[in-house]
């Protein structure tokens, strides 16, 4: 699989609606006494880029972190409702959270590489690493770095410390590390907010490539970015979902006045 690493103009393509991979129903979340998410009901579609937009503090991150239960260990966290991933209710007591997170990977706002080499970072999340030969490991590193368009930049220095990479490269390395675990759904929590514009573009392009094989749920507060990459759009405000639908519908034909105002970057009460 080869692809250019240079920037190209991203066409706002429109894909038809697809089956729901993640379905959230009547989700309420509290941190202590603060009611963060109110009666959320959304679905995220398979092999699409599902984009959650909204102002800061609207509960976007809390929602996305609920999908792989990253909030579980936060003090005072309490949730009610259901979230189905591939038909399984992941909120149930009997779910194995570690296995869930292997299926639903996550990339964070700030790139977080471990103080190890680049190849060790790619292999970091692999479970039965001891059973693999050196050759097989190298193959995995190469595949995933190619997938994230990093291979050309780092193939000659796989044993260098990962912290020597630029922030943009580190973020793509984090994505490669997540993909190596072979998840079905990839959650990205404002993955470009700490990157410069060129690196952000590289990550956006990467997402467009990834949606062929993965379901992507992506949080951003950058409306232009949503316009560039999203297929399905969810608009959140003050802990509730205001509107959801295809990108065309929300940008050109919104049902709610609030949606129109926010997406046109006009002043609104959000």
């Amino acid at each position, binding site marked *: 699989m080869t692809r250019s690493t240079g920037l190209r103009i991203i066409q706002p393509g429109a894909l038809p609606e697809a089956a729901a991979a993640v379905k959230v129903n009547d989700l309420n979340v509290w941190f202590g006494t603060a009611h963060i998410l109110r009666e959320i009901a959304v679905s995220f579609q398979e092999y699409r880029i599902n984009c959650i937009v909204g102002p800061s503090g609207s509960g976007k991150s809390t929602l996305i972190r609920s999908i792989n239960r990253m909030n579980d260990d936060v003090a005072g966290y309490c949730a009610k409702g259901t979230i189905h991933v591939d038909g399984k209710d992941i909120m149930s007591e009997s779910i194995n959270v570690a296995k869930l*997170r292997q299926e639903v990977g996550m990339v964070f706002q700030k790139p977080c590489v471990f*103080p190890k080499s680049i190849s060790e970072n790619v292999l*970091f999340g692999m479970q039965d690493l001891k059973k693999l030969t050196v050759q097989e490991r190298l193959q995995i590193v190469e595949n995933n770095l190619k997938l994230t368009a990093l291979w050309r930049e780092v193939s000659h220095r796989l044993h260098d410390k990962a912290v020597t990479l630029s922030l943009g490269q580190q973020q793509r390395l984090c994505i490669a590390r997540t993909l190596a675990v072979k998840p079905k759904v990839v959650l990205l929590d404002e993955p470009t907010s700490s990157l410069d514009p060129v690196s952000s573009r590289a990550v956006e392009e990467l997402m467009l490539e990834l949606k062929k094989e993965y379901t992507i749920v992506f949080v951003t507060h950058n409306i232009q970015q949503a316009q560039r990459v999203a297929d399905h759009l969810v608009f959140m405000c003050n802990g509730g979902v205001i509107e959801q639908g295809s990108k065309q519908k929300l940008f050109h034909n919104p049902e709610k006045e609030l949606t129109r105002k926010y997406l046109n970057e006009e002043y609104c009460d959000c």
Partner: protein
Amino acid sequence: MSASSRIGKGYVVGSTFLSAAMILVIILFLLMNSWDAIRQTGLQLFTSEWNPAQDKFGILPMICGSVAITAIAIAIALPLGIATAIFTSEVLPAGLRLYVKSLLELLAGIPSIIYGLIGVVFLSVWVEQAFDLQSGRTVFTGGLLLAVMVLPTIVTLSDDALHHVPQKYREAAKSLGFYNYEVIRNAVLPIAKPDIIGAALLGLGRVLGETMAVMLVVGSIDRIPEPFYNVFVPGQTLTSKLGREIAETAFGSLHFSAMIFMGLILLVFVLLVTTISLTYFYNPEDRLYE
């Protein structure tokens, strides 16, 4: 420069000089006073017979005792301490952690003589009964007592080391589908490792230099046990020997000089360990990730 400025500068320079020179003065005095023993006894100092009446000053039994007690104490306190630190840092709710930390700080401050008292009254009696010994004052008792004594220090320092690992590493590891123990083993411990090694070495230095508690429970027999790994017999450490005997030794005699030589050896050991531990704590290379 005004007069007050000059006097002031003189004062600060003088006190700095005094403070910095102190350790050198201590080393110098130990060296000067052990010189007689080094010159007259030479390598005979590193033999295993100590008998001042016959001018035999072999300090090997004391060195062996110190090493044995330190090894026992660290072997017990380190695994227990690190496991407890994992509990306080990774499992315990943040609100409780503060109380536990203050309590540990308090326990770390209990004077060693009180540990000695507990050792004499309880621990040595228990060891005597549990292992059916003639006397409970053994090398093992000393090691066990020091393990308890150094435990709070190792727990707080390791807990700090673990707690300083930024939360993002735990989240990143968790999001890859790791179980809690895998998060700790693969993500947290490797990053905290230099600081934990530093904590262990600091504890080691403290155990090595501890006097009062050891002196009261170790049995004070200047012999290398037969066989040497038998820890259930009375022994002697560098510190307990110094604590017991130095006040009864005539200043200026060869005996006194040999005692001071032991002090010098002890100081060199401890300073070496402490210096190495400091390089672990403050190694900037290892902190590149922060």
